[in-house]
Protein backbone atom coordinates (compact mmCIF):
# COMPACT_ATOMS: atom_id res chain seq x y z
CA UNK A 1 0.00 0.00 0.00
CA UNK A 2 1.28 3.44 -0.94
CA UNK A 3 -0.26 6.01 1.35
CA UNK A 4 -0.24 9.51 -0.15
CA UNK A 5 -3.04 11.01 1.91
CA UNK A 6 -1.04 12.31 4.86
CA UNK A 7 -2.94 15.61 4.89
CA UNK A 8 -6.10 13.66 5.69
CA UNK A 9 -4.44 11.76 8.48
CA UNK A 10 -1.15 10.06 9.28
CA UNK A 11 -0.14 6.64 10.55
CA UNK A 12 0.97 6.60 14.19
CA UNK A 13 4.72 7.10 14.56
CA UNK A 14 6.43 3.92 15.88
CA UNK A 15 7.86 5.83 18.86
CA UNK A 16 4.41 7.26 19.62
CA UNK A 17 2.99 3.75 19.46
CA UNK A 18 5.57 2.57 22.01
CA UNK A 19 4.81 5.50 24.28
CA UNK A 20 1.09 4.74 24.15
CA UNK A 21 1.63 1.06 24.92
CA UNK A 22 3.85 1.96 27.88
CA UNK A 23 1.20 4.35 29.14
CA UNK A 24 -1.76 1.99 28.87
CA UNK A 25 -1.65 1.09 32.55
CA UNK A 26 -1.54 4.72 33.68
CA UNK A 27 -5.23 4.85 34.38
CA UNK A 28 -5.25 7.47 37.12
CA UNK A 29 -7.36 10.60 36.93
CA UNK A 30 -4.92 13.47 36.67
CA UNK A 31 -7.21 15.52 38.90
CA UNK A 32 -6.88 13.03 41.77
CA UNK A 33 -4.64 14.06 44.64
CA UNK A 34 -3.25 10.62 45.36
CA UNK A 35 -0.15 8.99 43.90
CA UNK A 36 -1.98 7.21 41.06
CA UNK A 37 -3.46 10.49 39.93
CA UNK A 38 -0.33 12.54 40.50
CA UNK A 39 1.86 10.30 38.35
CA UNK A 40 -0.49 10.77 35.39
CA UNK A 41 -0.63 14.51 36.03
CA UNK A 42 3.17 14.61 35.89
CA UNK A 43 3.34 12.95 32.45
CA UNK A 44 0.54 15.13 31.18
CA UNK A 45 2.36 18.26 32.24
CA UNK A 46 5.57 16.95 30.67
CA UNK A 47 3.68 16.64 27.37
CA UNK A 48 2.31 20.13 27.75
CA UNK A 49 5.77 21.50 28.50
CA UNK A 50 7.35 19.78 25.49
CA UNK A 51 4.60 21.06 23.18
CA UNK A 52 4.95 24.57 24.63
CA UNK A 53 8.72 24.46 24.13
CA UNK A 54 8.29 23.29 20.56
CA UNK A 55 5.99 26.24 19.79
CA UNK A 56 7.99 28.58 22.02
CA UNK A 57 5.15 29.52 24.33
CA UNK A 58 4.25 28.86 27.95
CA UNK A 59 2.69 25.65 29.23
CA UNK A 60 -0.22 27.61 30.67
CA UNK A 61 -1.05 28.78 27.15
CA UNK A 62 -1.77 25.25 25.91
CA UNK A 63 -5.34 23.92 26.19
CA UNK A 64 -5.84 20.29 25.20
CA UNK A 65 -8.93 19.65 23.07
CA UNK A 66 -10.33 16.75 21.08
CA UNK A 67 -8.78 18.19 17.95
CA UNK A 68 -8.53 21.28 15.80
CA UNK A 69 -12.24 21.38 14.94
CA UNK A 70 -13.01 21.75 18.63
CA UNK A 71 -10.28 24.36 19.05
CA UNK A 72 -11.62 26.34 16.07
CA UNK A 73 -15.17 26.15 17.42
CA UNK A 74 -14.06 27.25 20.88
CA UNK A 75 -12.27 30.33 19.65
CA UNK A 76 -14.79 31.43 17.06
CA UNK A 77 -17.90 30.82 19.09
CA UNK A 78 -16.60 33.12 21.78
CA UNK A 79 -15.14 35.62 19.33
CA UNK A 80 -17.97 38.09 19.21
CA UNK A 81 -19.22 38.19 22.72
CA UNK A 82 -19.30 35.96 25.72
CA UNK A 83 -20.31 32.85 23.81
CA UNK A 84 -22.28 31.46 20.91
CA UNK A 85 -25.33 31.05 23.11
CA UNK A 86 -25.46 34.72 23.96
CA UNK A 87 -28.48 36.50 22.61
CA UNK A 88 -26.57 39.72 22.08
CA UNK A 89 -23.86 38.40 19.78
CA UNK A 90 -22.87 41.24 17.55
CA UNK A 91 -19.87 42.41 15.63
CA UNK A 92 -17.76 41.34 12.71
CA UNK A 93 -15.40 38.46 11.93
CA UNK A 94 -12.85 38.30 9.13
CA UNK A 95 -11.90 34.95 7.65
CA UNK A 96 -11.03 33.57 4.22
CA UNK A 97 -12.94 31.64 1.57
CA UNK A 98 -10.64 28.60 1.76
CA UNK A 99 -10.82 27.80 5.48
CA UNK A 100 -11.53 24.35 6.85
CA UNK A 101 -15.27 23.58 7.30
CA UNK A 102 -14.81 23.76 11.09
CA UNK A 103 -14.11 27.47 10.64
CA UNK A 104 -16.47 28.23 7.75
CA UNK A 105 -19.46 26.46 9.26
CA UNK A 106 -18.85 27.95 12.70
CA UNK A 107 -18.76 31.50 11.37
CA UNK A 108 -21.80 30.79 9.25
CA UNK A 109 -23.65 29.83 12.47
CA UNK A 110 -22.61 33.18 13.92
CA UNK A 111 -23.63 34.88 10.69
CA UNK A 112 -27.20 33.84 11.48
CA UNK A 113 -26.98 35.71 14.79
CA UNK A 114 -26.37 39.34 13.88
CA UNK A 115 -22.64 38.82 13.29
CA UNK A 116 -21.23 40.08 10.00
CA UNK A 117 -18.70 37.87 8.28
CA UNK A 118 -16.13 38.97 5.71
CA UNK A 119 -14.63 36.20 3.62
CA UNK A 120 -11.33 37.40 2.18
CA UNK A 121 -10.80 35.91 -1.27
CA UNK A 122 -7.52 34.28 -2.19
CA UNK A 123 -5.80 35.16 -5.45
CA UNK A 124 -5.55 32.73 -8.37
CA UNK A 125 -2.64 31.02 -6.67
CA UNK A 126 -4.49 30.48 -3.42
CA UNK A 127 -2.80 33.20 -1.37
CA UNK A 128 -4.43 35.90 0.75
CA UNK A 129 -3.26 39.48 0.37
CA UNK A 130 -2.71 40.96 3.87
CA UNK A 131 -3.81 44.34 2.49
CA UNK A 132 -7.25 42.85 1.79
CA UNK A 133 -7.47 41.76 5.41
CA UNK A 134 -6.47 45.21 6.62
CA UNK A 135 -9.03 46.86 4.34
CA UNK A 136 -11.77 44.65 5.76
CA UNK A 137 -11.16 45.63 9.39
CA UNK A 138 -14.01 47.64 10.94
CA UNK A 139 -14.34 49.30 14.33
CA UNK A 140 -16.47 46.35 15.45
CA UNK A 141 -14.20 43.59 14.11
CA UNK A 142 -13.94 41.02 16.89
CA UNK A 143 -11.67 38.40 15.35
CA UNK A 144 -9.53 37.58 12.34
CA UNK A 145 -9.23 33.88 11.59
CA UNK A 146 -7.01 32.80 8.71
CA UNK A 147 -5.57 29.33 8.24
CA UNK A 148 -1.80 28.93 8.18
CA UNK A 149 -1.54 26.29 5.46
CA UNK A 150 -4.44 25.19 3.29
CA UNK A 151 -5.25 21.50 3.57
CA UNK A 152 -6.14 20.94 -0.08
CA UNK A 153 -3.59 22.91 -2.07
CA UNK A 154 -0.95 23.45 0.61
CA UNK A 155 -0.56 27.20 0.14
CA UNK A 156 1.20 28.94 3.03
CA UNK A 157 -0.54 32.18 3.99
CA UNK A 158 1.36 35.29 5.08
CA UNK A 159 0.20 34.72 8.66
CA UNK A 160 2.91 36.80 10.29
CA UNK A 161 2.02 39.87 8.25
CA UNK A 162 -1.67 39.37 8.83
CA UNK A 163 -1.12 38.88 12.57
CA UNK A 164 0.94 42.07 12.71
CA UNK A 165 -1.87 43.95 11.02
CA UNK A 166 -4.34 42.47 13.49
CA UNK A 167 -2.18 43.54 16.39
CA UNK A 168 -1.76 47.04 14.95
CA UNK A 169 -5.54 47.39 14.89
CA UNK A 170 -5.95 45.66 18.24
CA UNK A 171 -8.05 42.84 16.76
CA UNK A 172 -7.63 39.30 18.16
CA UNK A 173 -6.07 36.93 15.64
CA UNK A 174 -6.59 33.19 15.29
CA UNK A 175 -4.92 30.76 12.92
CA UNK A 176 -5.85 27.17 12.15
CA UNK A 177 -2.35 25.67 11.94
CA UNK A 178 -3.30 22.03 11.47
CA UNK A 179 -1.21 21.56 8.34
CA UNK A 180 1.65 23.75 9.58
CA UNK A 181 2.65 22.45 13.00
CA UNK A 182 5.41 19.88 12.63
CA UNK A 183 6.11 20.88 9.04
CA UNK A 184 7.31 24.44 9.28
CA UNK A 185 8.92 26.06 12.34
CA UNK A 186 6.44 28.02 14.46
CA UNK A 187 7.80 30.42 17.05
CA UNK A 188 4.97 31.97 19.01
CA UNK A 189 7.26 34.64 20.42
CA UNK A 190 7.77 35.92 16.90
CA UNK A 191 4.35 35.11 15.43
CA UNK A 192 1.91 37.50 17.08
CA UNK A 193 -1.25 35.39 16.87
CA UNK A 194 -3.51 35.26 19.91
CA UNK A 195 -4.95 31.83 19.17
CA UNK A 196 -3.69 28.82 17.24
CA UNK A 197 -5.32 25.43 16.64
CA UNK A 198 -3.61 22.17 15.84
CA UNK A 199 -4.45 18.49 15.62
CA UNK A 200 -2.46 15.42 16.66
CA UNK A 201 -3.44 13.02 13.92
CA UNK A 202 -1.79 15.08 11.20
CA UNK A 203 1.58 14.67 12.92
CA UNK A 204 1.62 10.92 13.59
CA UNK A 205 -0.33 10.97 16.87
CA UNK A 206 -3.75 9.31 17.17
CA UNK A 207 -7.09 10.92 16.34
CA UNK A 208 -9.05 12.71 19.06
CA UNK A 209 -6.38 14.98 20.49
CA UNK A 210 -5.40 18.50 19.58
CA UNK A 211 -4.61 21.81 21.15
CA UNK A 212 -5.78 25.36 21.34
CA UNK A 213 -3.01 27.83 22.06
CA UNK A 214 -4.39 30.87 23.84
CA UNK A 215 -1.94 33.64 24.49
CA UNK A 216 -1.79 34.67 28.14
CA UNK A 217 -3.05 38.19 27.58
CA UNK A 218 -5.51 37.33 24.81
CA UNK A 219 -9.18 38.14 25.22
CA UNK A 220 -11.14 35.74 27.37
CA UNK A 221 -12.90 32.88 25.74
CA UNK A 222 -15.89 30.93 26.83
CA UNK A 223 -15.33 27.17 27.05
CA UNK A 224 -17.28 25.12 24.56
CA UNK A 225 -17.58 22.33 27.09
CA UNK A 226 -18.33 23.45 30.64
CA UNK A 227 -18.11 21.33 33.73
CA UNK A 228 -15.02 20.66 35.86
CA UNK A 229 -11.98 22.81 36.24
CA UNK A 230 -9.75 20.85 33.84
CA UNK A 231 -7.51 22.78 31.44
CA UNK A 232 -7.73 25.89 33.55
CA UNK A 233 -11.52 25.73 33.27
CA UNK A 234 -11.18 26.28 29.54
CA UNK A 235 -12.19 22.74 28.59
CA UNK A 236 -14.08 20.56 31.01
CA UNK A 237 -13.99 16.79 31.06
CA UNK A 238 -11.41 14.31 32.33
CA UNK A 239 -8.38 14.68 30.14
CA UNK A 240 -7.69 12.36 27.21
CA UNK A 241 -4.56 11.18 29.00
CA UNK A 242 -3.38 8.67 26.41
CA UNK A 243 -3.96 11.17 23.63
CA UNK A 244 -2.05 13.90 25.43
CA UNK A 245 0.85 11.57 26.22
CA UNK A 246 0.89 10.46 22.57
CA UNK A 247 0.79 14.03 21.30
CA UNK A 248 3.71 14.94 23.54
CA UNK A 249 5.75 12.13 22.02
CA UNK A 250 4.68 13.05 18.47
CA UNK A 251 5.90 16.59 19.09
CA UNK A 252 9.22 15.34 20.47
CA UNK A 253 9.60 13.29 17.27
CA UNK A 254 8.75 16.33 15.13
CA UNK A 255 11.55 18.18 16.86
CA UNK A 256 13.99 15.42 15.94
CA UNK A 257 12.78 14.75 12.39
CA UNK A 258 11.33 17.98 11.09
CA UNK A 259 14.31 19.28 9.16
CA UNK A 260 15.30 15.92 7.74
CA UNK A 261 11.71 15.15 6.74
CA UNK A 262 11.42 18.50 5.04
CA UNK A 263 14.45 17.94 2.89
CA UNK A 264 13.62 14.37 1.96
CA UNK A 265 9.90 14.91 1.34
CA UNK A 266 10.51 18.09 -0.69
CA UNK A 267 12.75 16.09 -3.03
CA UNK A 268 10.16 13.31 -3.33
CA UNK A 269 7.29 15.72 -3.97
CA UNK A 270 9.30 17.48 -6.67
CA UNK A 271 10.21 14.16 -8.23
CA UNK A 272 6.55 13.16 -8.28
CA UNK A 273 5.47 16.38 -9.97
CA UNK A 274 8.30 16.41 -12.47
CA UNK A 275 7.66 12.76 -13.29
CA UNK A 276 3.98 13.35 -13.94
CA UNK A 277 4.38 16.67 -15.75
CA UNK A 278 7.09 15.34 -18.04
CA UNK A 279 5.00 12.35 -19.09
CA UNK A 280 1.52 13.89 -19.35
CA UNK A 281 0.25 17.08 -20.88
CA UNK A 282 -2.64 19.22 -19.68
CA UNK A 283 -1.78 18.83 -16.01
CA UNK A 284 -2.18 21.88 -13.81
CA UNK A 285 -0.56 22.51 -10.44
CA UNK A 286 -3.13 24.04 -8.08
CA UNK A 287 -1.77 26.55 -5.60
CA UNK A 288 1.27 28.82 -5.65
CA UNK A 289 4.25 26.56 -6.47
CA UNK A 290 6.57 28.90 -4.56
CA UNK A 291 4.46 29.25 -1.44
CA UNK A 292 3.42 25.70 -0.79
CA UNK A 293 4.05 23.29 2.04
CA UNK A 294 6.54 20.69 0.88
CA UNK A 295 4.40 17.58 1.28
CA UNK A 296 1.34 18.51 -0.78
CA UNK A 297 0.93 18.35 -4.53
CA UNK A 298 -2.52 19.17 -5.86
CA UNK A 299 -2.85 18.47 -9.58
CA UNK A 300 -5.74 18.79 -12.00
CA UNK A 301 -5.82 16.36 -14.89
CA UNK A 302 -7.86 18.11 -17.55
CA UNK A 303 -10.83 16.27 -19.09
CA UNK A 304 -11.14 13.52 -16.52
CA UNK A 305 -13.01 13.19 -13.30
CA UNK A 306 -11.31 12.88 -9.91
CA UNK A 307 -13.23 10.02 -8.37
CA UNK A 308 -12.39 7.80 -11.33
CA UNK A 309 -8.71 8.65 -10.91
CA UNK A 310 -8.86 8.07 -7.16
CA UNK A 311 -10.50 4.66 -7.43
CA UNK A 312 -8.23 3.44 -10.21
CA UNK A 313 -5.18 4.51 -8.20
CA UNK A 314 -6.73 2.72 -5.22
CA UNK A 315 -6.79 -0.42 -7.37
CA UNK A 316 -3.02 0.05 -7.76
CA UNK A 317 -2.78 0.31 -3.96
CA UNK A 318 -2.22 4.07 -4.03
CA UNK A 319 -4.25 6.24 -1.64
CA UNK A 320 -4.97 9.85 -2.62
CA UNK A 321 -7.87 12.29 -2.33
CA UNK A 322 -9.86 14.43 -4.77
CA UNK A 323 -11.79 17.68 -4.91
CA UNK A 324 -14.40 16.21 -7.21
CA UNK A 325 -18.03 16.47 -6.17
CA UNK A 326 -18.52 12.79 -6.80
CA UNK A 327 -16.22 11.93 -3.94
CA UNK A 328 -18.54 13.51 -1.41
CA UNK A 329 -21.93 12.72 -2.88
CA UNK A 330 -22.63 16.44 -3.10
CA UNK A 331 -23.29 18.32 -6.31
CA UNK A 332 -20.53 20.87 -5.81
CA UNK A 333 -16.81 20.31 -6.31
CA UNK A 334 -14.15 21.57 -3.87
CA UNK A 335 -14.67 25.20 -2.87
CA UNK A 336 -10.94 25.56 -2.36
CA UNK A 337 -10.08 24.74 -5.97
CA UNK A 338 -13.00 26.75 -7.39
CA UNK A 339 -11.82 29.73 -5.29
CA UNK A 340 -8.74 29.84 -7.55
CA UNK A 341 -11.00 31.36 -10.18
CA UNK A 342 -10.92 28.30 -12.40
CA UNK A 343 -13.70 26.44 -14.20
CA UNK A 344 -15.51 23.85 -12.07
CA UNK A 345 -14.07 21.05 -14.22
CA UNK A 346 -10.60 21.91 -12.91
CA UNK A 347 -11.92 21.15 -9.43
CA UNK A 348 -13.67 17.99 -10.61
CA UNK A 349 -10.39 16.72 -12.04
CA UNK A 350 -8.18 17.56 -9.07
CA UNK A 351 -6.15 15.03 -7.09
CA UNK A 352 -4.23 15.74 -3.91
CA UNK A 353 -1.09 13.76 -3.25
CA UNK A 354 0.13 14.36 0.30
CA UNK A 355 3.39 12.75 1.28
CA UNK A 356 4.59 11.82 4.72
CA UNK A 357 7.54 10.59 6.73
CA UNK A 358 7.01 7.03 5.52
CA UNK A 359 6.93 7.88 1.80
CA UNK A 360 9.80 6.30 -0.13
CA UNK A 361 11.39 6.90 -3.49
CA UNK A 362 10.03 3.56 -4.67
CA UNK A 363 6.51 4.72 -3.73
CA UNK A 364 6.98 7.77 -5.91
CA UNK A 365 8.28 5.78 -8.88
CA UNK A 366 5.32 3.42 -8.70
CA UNK A 367 2.90 6.32 -8.29
CA UNK A 368 4.20 8.12 -11.37
CA UNK A 369 3.80 4.94 -13.39
CA UNK A 370 0.26 4.27 -12.10
CA UNK A 371 -0.82 7.89 -12.60
CA UNK A 372 0.40 7.92 -16.20
CA UNK A 373 -1.40 4.65 -16.95
CA UNK A 374 -4.62 5.78 -15.24
CA UNK A 375 -4.74 9.21 -16.85
CA UNK A 376 -3.94 7.85 -20.30
CA UNK A 377 -6.75 5.31 -20.01
CA UNK A 378 -9.33 7.76 -18.66
CA UNK A 379 -8.48 10.35 -21.29
CA UNK A 380 -8.92 7.73 -23.96
CA UNK A 381 -12.52 7.19 -22.84
CA UNK A 382 -13.26 10.90 -22.31
CA UNK A 383 -15.47 12.65 -24.89
CA UNK A 384 -13.60 15.91 -24.32
CA UNK A 385 -10.43 16.00 -26.34
Amino acid at each position, binding site marked *: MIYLDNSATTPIHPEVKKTIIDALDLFGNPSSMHTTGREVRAILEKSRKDIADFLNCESSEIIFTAGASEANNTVLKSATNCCAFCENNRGHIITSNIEHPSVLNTVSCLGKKNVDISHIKVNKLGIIDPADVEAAIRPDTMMISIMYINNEIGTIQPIKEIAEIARKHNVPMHTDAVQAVGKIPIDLQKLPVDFLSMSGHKIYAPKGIGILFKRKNAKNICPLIVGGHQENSMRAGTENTLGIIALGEAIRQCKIEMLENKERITALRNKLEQGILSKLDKVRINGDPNKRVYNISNLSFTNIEGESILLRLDMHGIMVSTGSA*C*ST*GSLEPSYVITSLDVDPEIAHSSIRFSLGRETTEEDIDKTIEAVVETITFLRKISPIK
Partner: protein
Amino acid sequence: MDGSNWNYSDKVKEHFFHPKNILEIDEKEYNADGVGFVGSPACGDMMKIFIKVKDDKIADLKWQTFGCASAIGSTSMLSVMVTENGGMSLDDAWKLTPEMIINKLGGLPPNKIHCSVLGDKALREAIKDHYKRTGQEDRIPKDSKSRVICECLNITEDDIRMEVLEGVKDFKTLQERTKLGTMCGKCVDTAKTLVDFYVGRYYTEEIYSGKEEEK
Protein backbone atom coordinates in the same frame (compact mmCIF):
# COMPACT_ATOMS: atom_id res chain seq x y z
CA MET B 1 -16.61 11.61 3.46
CA ASP B 2 -18.75 8.66 4.31
CA GLY B 3 -16.97 5.35 3.82
CA SER B 4 -20.18 3.67 2.71
CA ASN B 5 -19.99 5.79 -0.45
CA TRP B 6 -17.42 3.34 -1.66
CA ASN B 7 -19.60 0.30 -1.22
CA TYR B 8 -19.65 -0.50 -4.90
CA SER B 9 -20.92 -3.92 -5.91
CA ASP B 10 -18.53 -6.30 -7.63
CA LYS B 11 -20.45 -5.74 -10.88
CA VAL B 12 -19.89 -1.98 -10.71
CA LYS B 13 -16.20 -2.51 -9.98
CA GLU B 14 -15.87 -4.96 -12.85
CA HIS B 15 -17.47 -2.52 -15.30
CA PHE B 16 -15.53 0.43 -13.88
CA PHE B 17 -12.14 -1.22 -14.04
CA HIS B 18 -12.81 -2.99 -17.34
CA PRO B 19 -15.42 -0.92 -19.14
CA LYS B 20 -17.02 -2.55 -22.18
CA ASN B 21 -17.74 -1.00 -25.58
CA ILE B 22 -15.66 2.15 -25.30
CA LEU B 23 -15.17 4.09 -28.52
CA GLU B 24 -11.46 3.83 -29.01
CA ILE B 25 -11.22 4.81 -32.67
CA ASP B 26 -11.86 8.21 -34.19
CA GLU B 27 -15.49 9.27 -34.14
CA LYS B 28 -15.60 9.79 -37.91
CA GLU B 29 -14.11 6.41 -38.57
CA TYR B 30 -16.82 4.76 -36.48
CA ASN B 31 -19.50 6.35 -38.64
CA ALA B 32 -22.40 6.10 -36.20
CA ASP B 33 -26.07 6.13 -37.19
CA GLY B 34 -26.90 8.29 -34.20
CA VAL B 35 -24.95 10.29 -31.62
CA GLY B 36 -26.16 11.56 -28.22
CA PHE B 37 -24.18 13.97 -26.06
CA VAL B 38 -25.42 15.08 -22.63
CA GLY B 39 -24.10 16.63 -19.42
CA SER B 40 -21.50 19.30 -18.87
CA PRO B 41 -17.99 19.31 -17.49
CA ALA B 42 -19.06 21.90 -14.92
CA CYS B 43 -21.33 19.31 -13.32
CA GLY B 44 -18.55 16.78 -13.35
CA ASP B 45 -20.06 14.45 -15.88
CA MET B 46 -20.54 14.25 -19.62
CA MET B 47 -21.66 11.33 -21.70
CA LYS B 48 -21.43 10.66 -25.42
CA ILE B 49 -23.12 7.66 -26.96
CA PHE B 50 -22.74 6.39 -30.54
CA ILE B 51 -25.15 3.82 -31.98
CA LYS B 52 -25.33 1.73 -35.10
CA VAL B 53 -28.79 0.64 -36.14
CA LYS B 54 -29.79 -2.40 -38.17
CA ASP B 55 -33.34 -3.72 -38.67
CA ASP B 56 -34.60 -1.19 -36.16
CA LYS B 57 -32.34 -2.73 -33.52
CA ILE B 58 -29.19 -1.44 -31.86
CA ALA B 59 -26.54 -3.39 -33.72
CA ASP B 60 -23.67 -1.73 -31.86
CA LEU B 61 -23.13 0.90 -29.21
CA LYS B 62 -19.95 2.72 -28.24
CA TRP B 63 -19.51 5.43 -25.62
CA GLN B 64 -17.17 7.93 -24.03
CA THR B 65 -17.48 9.64 -20.68
CA PHE B 66 -16.06 12.30 -18.44
CA GLY B 67 -17.42 10.90 -15.22
CA CYS B 68 -16.95 9.04 -11.99
CA ALA B 69 -16.92 5.33 -11.27
CA SER B 70 -20.74 5.13 -11.14
CA ALA B 71 -21.07 6.90 -14.48
CA ILE B 72 -18.48 4.66 -16.12
CA GLY B 73 -19.84 1.47 -14.53
CA SER B 74 -23.46 2.17 -15.37
CA THR B 75 -22.80 3.22 -18.97
CA SER B 76 -20.67 0.16 -19.53
CA MET B 77 -23.54 -1.96 -18.21
CA LEU B 78 -26.02 -0.09 -20.41
CA SER B 79 -23.85 -0.78 -23.45
CA VAL B 80 -23.98 -4.48 -22.72
CA MET B 81 -27.73 -4.50 -22.05
CA VAL B 82 -28.69 -2.89 -25.35
CA THR B 83 -26.30 -4.88 -27.56
CA GLU B 84 -26.61 -8.42 -26.13
CA ASN B 85 -28.83 -11.07 -27.72
CA GLY B 86 -28.72 -9.53 -31.15
CA GLY B 87 -29.43 -5.99 -29.97
CA MET B 88 -32.37 -4.27 -28.32
CA SER B 89 -35.12 -2.77 -30.45
CA LEU B 90 -35.08 1.01 -30.63
CA ASP B 91 -38.49 1.15 -28.92
CA ASP B 92 -37.28 -0.92 -25.98
CA ALA B 93 -33.98 0.96 -25.77
CA TRP B 94 -35.92 4.22 -25.56
CA LYS B 95 -37.68 2.92 -22.45
CA LEU B 96 -34.49 1.98 -20.59
CA THR B 97 -34.39 3.60 -17.12
CA PRO B 98 -31.57 4.20 -14.64
CA GLU B 99 -33.39 1.82 -12.27
CA MET B 100 -33.06 -1.06 -14.75
CA ILE B 101 -29.35 -0.42 -15.13
CA ILE B 102 -28.81 -0.03 -11.38
CA ASN B 103 -30.63 -3.29 -10.79
CA LYS B 104 -28.41 -5.10 -13.29
CA LEU B 105 -25.38 -3.64 -11.52
CA GLY B 106 -26.51 -5.07 -8.20
CA GLY B 107 -27.32 -1.64 -6.80
CA LEU B 108 -25.48 1.62 -6.24
CA PRO B 109 -24.78 3.57 -3.04
CA PRO B 110 -27.69 6.07 -2.71
CA ASN B 111 -25.58 9.19 -3.07
CA LYS B 112 -24.05 7.90 -6.29
CA ILE B 113 -27.34 7.37 -8.09
CA HIS B 114 -27.30 10.84 -9.59
CA CYS B 115 -24.06 9.91 -11.36
CA SER B 116 -25.75 7.07 -13.20
CA VAL B 117 -28.61 8.88 -14.90
CA LEU B 118 -26.70 10.25 -17.87
CA GLY B 119 -26.26 7.01 -19.80
CA ASP B 120 -29.89 6.39 -20.65
CA LYS B 121 -30.39 10.10 -21.38
CA ALA B 122 -27.53 10.03 -23.87
CA LEU B 123 -28.91 6.85 -25.39
CA ARG B 124 -32.30 8.50 -26.01
CA GLU B 125 -30.50 11.47 -27.56
CA ALA B 126 -28.63 9.10 -29.87
CA ILE B 127 -31.85 7.34 -30.88
CA LYS B 128 -33.50 10.73 -31.44
CA ASP B 129 -30.54 11.73 -33.61
CA HIS B 130 -30.97 8.54 -35.63
CA TYR B 131 -34.70 9.20 -36.10
CA LYS B 132 -33.91 12.70 -37.34
CA ARG B 133 -31.25 11.49 -39.73
CA THR B 134 -33.62 8.90 -41.22
CA GLY B 135 -36.74 11.02 -41.48
CA GLN B 136 -38.55 9.26 -38.63
CA GLU B 137 -39.13 12.34 -36.48
CA ASP B 138 -42.68 11.16 -35.87
CA ARG B 139 -41.27 8.32 -33.75
CA ILE B 140 -39.79 10.75 -31.24
CA PRO B 141 -42.22 10.46 -28.31
CA LYS B 142 -43.94 13.68 -27.35
CA ASP B 143 -43.55 14.95 -23.78
CA SER B 144 -44.34 12.21 -21.34
CA LYS B 145 -47.77 12.00 -19.85
CA SER B 146 -46.41 12.69 -16.37
CA ARG B 147 -48.76 15.01 -14.49
CA VAL B 148 -47.88 18.68 -14.29
CA ILE B 149 -47.14 19.83 -10.74
CA CYS B 150 -46.04 23.43 -11.22
CA GLU B 151 -48.47 24.82 -13.74
CA CYS B 152 -46.77 28.20 -13.94
CA LEU B 153 -43.50 26.73 -15.12
CA ASN B 154 -44.80 23.46 -16.57
CA ILE B 155 -42.75 21.19 -14.27
CA THR B 156 -43.98 17.60 -14.11
CA GLU B 157 -43.80 14.90 -11.47
CA ASP B 158 -41.25 13.15 -13.64
CA ASP B 159 -39.09 16.29 -13.72
CA ILE B 160 -39.10 16.25 -9.92
CA ARG B 161 -38.24 12.56 -9.85
CA MET B 162 -35.29 13.19 -12.19
CA GLU B 163 -34.07 16.09 -10.03
CA VAL B 164 -34.05 13.76 -7.02
CA LEU B 165 -32.19 11.13 -9.03
CA GLU B 166 -29.63 13.75 -9.90
CA GLY B 167 -29.00 14.52 -6.25
CA VAL B 168 -31.65 16.91 -4.99
CA LYS B 169 -32.58 15.89 -1.45
CA ASP B 170 -34.86 18.67 -0.25
CA PHE B 171 -37.48 21.08 -1.48
CA LYS B 172 -35.25 24.13 -1.09
CA THR B 173 -32.63 22.73 -3.47
CA LEU B 174 -35.35 21.65 -5.89
CA GLN B 175 -36.70 25.17 -5.91
CA GLU B 176 -33.24 26.70 -6.37
CA ARG B 177 -32.65 24.50 -9.39
CA THR B 178 -36.07 24.57 -11.06
CA LYS B 179 -37.72 27.74 -9.67
CA LEU B 180 -40.76 25.52 -9.07
CA GLY B 181 -43.43 27.14 -6.94
CA THR B 182 -41.92 30.60 -7.18
CA MET B 183 -44.78 32.11 -9.20
CA CYS B 184 -48.21 31.42 -7.70
CA GLY B 185 -46.87 28.98 -5.12
CA LYS B 186 -49.91 26.73 -4.96
CA CYS B 187 -47.95 23.59 -5.90
CA VAL B 188 -45.47 23.91 -3.03
CA ASP B 189 -47.13 21.41 -0.69
CA THR B 190 -47.55 18.76 -3.40
CA ALA B 191 -43.96 19.25 -4.56
CA LYS B 192 -42.63 18.91 -0.99
CA THR B 193 -44.49 15.62 -0.60
CA LEU B 194 -43.10 14.36 -3.91
CA VAL B 195 -39.51 15.28 -3.02
CA ASP B 196 -39.84 13.41 0.28
CA PHE B 197 -41.42 10.46 -1.49
CA TYR B 198 -38.65 10.11 -4.08
CA VAL B 199 -35.85 10.80 -1.59
CA GLY B 200 -37.36 8.03 0.51
CA ARG B 201 -37.43 5.73 -2.48
CA TYR B 202 -33.91 6.36 -3.74
CA TYR B 203 -31.83 7.31 -0.73
CA THR B 204 -32.97 5.47 2.36
CA GLU B 205 -31.26 2.14 1.93
CA GLU B 206 -27.52 1.79 2.08
CA ILE B 207 -27.53 0.50 -1.47
CA TYR B 208 -30.40 1.30 -3.77
CA SER B 209 -31.13 -1.84 -5.75
CA GLY B 210 -33.38 -0.40 -8.42
CA LYS B 211 -35.60 -3.48 -8.00
CA GLU B 212 -38.88 -1.74 -7.14
CA GLU B 213 -39.14 -0.35 -10.63
CA GLU B 214 -38.06 -3.27 -12.67
CA LYS B 215 -40.87 -4.46 -14.85
